[in-house]
């Protein structure tokens, strides 16, 4: 069965290919795009035609892209993407009703477009959220056209078919939510508990994963399967460490000890430089960034765990393997404290031992001991 499925020819109808060519996307690039998406979603090749058809369907989903407490890095990641014209596909194919960074409209006109779209496509559009939502002090720390981020999110995400949280800030609160979190920043799923949210964390998110989620939605009419943190399994189902190209050096026992040392220059594992790959779930090693050009570990820098919840607080210090032990100085590592503790125990018991050895008359029935000749 398996084999048959594998060998069945993957045929995308000539019609579809020609339509894309008419739009200026050559068939090679279009097919490449469909197969990249199929692979990213971990689907069998036989799904390529289905995906190609889905993209052809006359169901351009309206998209409202909102940005709150973020750095626009996710927008940038998407705009810079040109994996077989992914940007073209996404931006041309989707009907982007609102996106502050790239839309032509401004001011009242733009705000009107947003709420018109919410009305017109109620329950049908996709909301994309970038950045976290401040809850403290009535949400005054982030307002758009005089309206708090929280109110906007409630209105827009509340009646969306699905909300995609792009980037770590929207997915978990991210850097704005890092201690002491002055604005009371939270993720979109916490801000609007009723919304159907899928999280695509990462700093920035990987645009290919966003494209794949949308393609999945168009092909199957629903969001892909997620894990307990609301992340799609196809992209966050494996640790960085388990797909890392430096893994053989990890297993061998070859580690760079400082940046630029011989080990580092030879591409050894970055574990001792604080790499958080062993505790971070993301498909960076396989999908990479910027059209598969590179990703942090490939470029020689350890993973900082940017796609994990509360990474700024829990994954730091970024150049140490373990967090600092609370209550001890900046330079104290768990090992130094542990060694100190063990040494102190040894000294204390050693002293007790000396005292006990010199102590007379406390042993059991010393008077009855018979000395040997």
């Amino acid at each position: 069965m398996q084999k048959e499925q594998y060998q069945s020819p993957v045929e995308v109808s000539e019609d579809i290919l020609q339509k894309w060519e008419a739009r200026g996307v050559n068939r090679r690039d279009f097919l490449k795009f469909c197969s990249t998406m199929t692979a990213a979603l971990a689907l069998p090749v036989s799904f390529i035609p289905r995906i190609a058809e889905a993209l052809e369907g006359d169901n351009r989903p309206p998209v409202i892209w909102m940005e709150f407490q973020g750095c626009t890095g996710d927008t940038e990641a998407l705009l810079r993407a040109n994996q077989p014209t992914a940007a073209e596909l996404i931006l041309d194919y989707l009907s982007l009703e609102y996106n502050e960074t790239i839309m032509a409209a401004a001011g009242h006109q733009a705000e009107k477009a947003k709420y018109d779209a919410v009305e017109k496509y109620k329950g049908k559009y996709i909301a994309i959220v970038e950045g976290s939502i401040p809850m403290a002090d009535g949400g005054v720390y982030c307002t758009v056209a005089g309206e708090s981020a929280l109110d906007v999110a409630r209105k827009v995400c509340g009646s969306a078919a699905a909300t995609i949280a792009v980037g770590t800030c929207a997915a978990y609160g991210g850097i704005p939510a890092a201690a002491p979190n002055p604005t009371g920043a939270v993720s979109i799923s916490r801000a609007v508990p009723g919304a159907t949210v899928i999280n695509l964390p990462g700093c920035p998110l990987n645009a290919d994963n966003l494209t794949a989620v949308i393609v999945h939605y168009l092909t199957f009419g629903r969001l892909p399967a997620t894990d307990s943190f609301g992340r799609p399994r196809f992209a966050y189902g494996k640790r960085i460490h388990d797909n890392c190209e430096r893994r053989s050096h990890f297993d061998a026992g070859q580690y760079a000890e400082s940046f630029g040392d011989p080990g580092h220059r030879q591409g050894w594992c970055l574990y001792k430089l604080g790499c958080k790959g062993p505790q971070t779930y993301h498909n960076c090693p396989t999908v990479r960034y910027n059209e598969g050009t590179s990703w942090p570990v490939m470029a020689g820098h350890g993973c900082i765990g940017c796609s994990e919840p509360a990474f700024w607080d829990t994954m730091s210090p970024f150049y140490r393997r373990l967090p600092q032990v609370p209550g001890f100085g900046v330079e104290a590592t768990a090992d130094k404290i542990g060694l100190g503790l063990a040494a102190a125990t040894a000294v204390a018991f050693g002293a007790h031992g000396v005292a006990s050895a010199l102590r007379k008359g406390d042993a059991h029935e010393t008077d009855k001991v018979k000395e040997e000749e």
Partner: protein
Amino acid sequence: MLEIRYVWEWPVRITHWINALCIVVLAVTGIYIGNPFLLAPSPDAFVMGWVRFIHYVFAYLFTVSMVARIIWLFIGNQHASWKAFVPWAFSKGRENMWGTFKYYTFIEKKVPYVVGHNALAAAAYSLVFALFLVQIVTGFALYGQYQPGSFWDVIFGPLFGLFSSPGVRLTHHVVTWLLIGFAIHHIYSAWLMDIKEKNGTLSSIFSGYKFMNPEDLK
């Protein structure tokens, strides 16, 4: 007259020594995992691979041994029973704890003379048992990370949501040092009691026998 008493039944002795072996191996391999101080000369080595493999094999052995010992808490003799490990719950136990404390702090001269554990040691063992369980739970949680949805990930994975993944790692790491501290204390106390009680404390964990004078227990 001295009596030969069979105090530590064989499951107690076997699990004791398996635990001791496991803790030494797990601490040594664990510290290497935490800080790989030896670098392999060539990429065809498999140093970390083996160290982690050994850590996991002994982790399973340790877990099985702990489960066996926990079962024995309910079927073993009075010295192996769970009741021996919560001396603070009984008035006699509280008295013994206080007595032992006074002996250790040089306030009282008379060495506590008991058949099984001295009460203070028994209280320390319940803490150590708790630390063992912490190591097993955090260890298997970390182990499960390689495969989300695997058995270990399903049962212990929720810990990461509560304490974060680096928090769980740090706990596993810090508890190792606490156990090293315990080992120092444990060996010292056993040695001290062997000398002062003169009833074969050290050999009893090999043979199971202690030599007691029933008169002195009164």
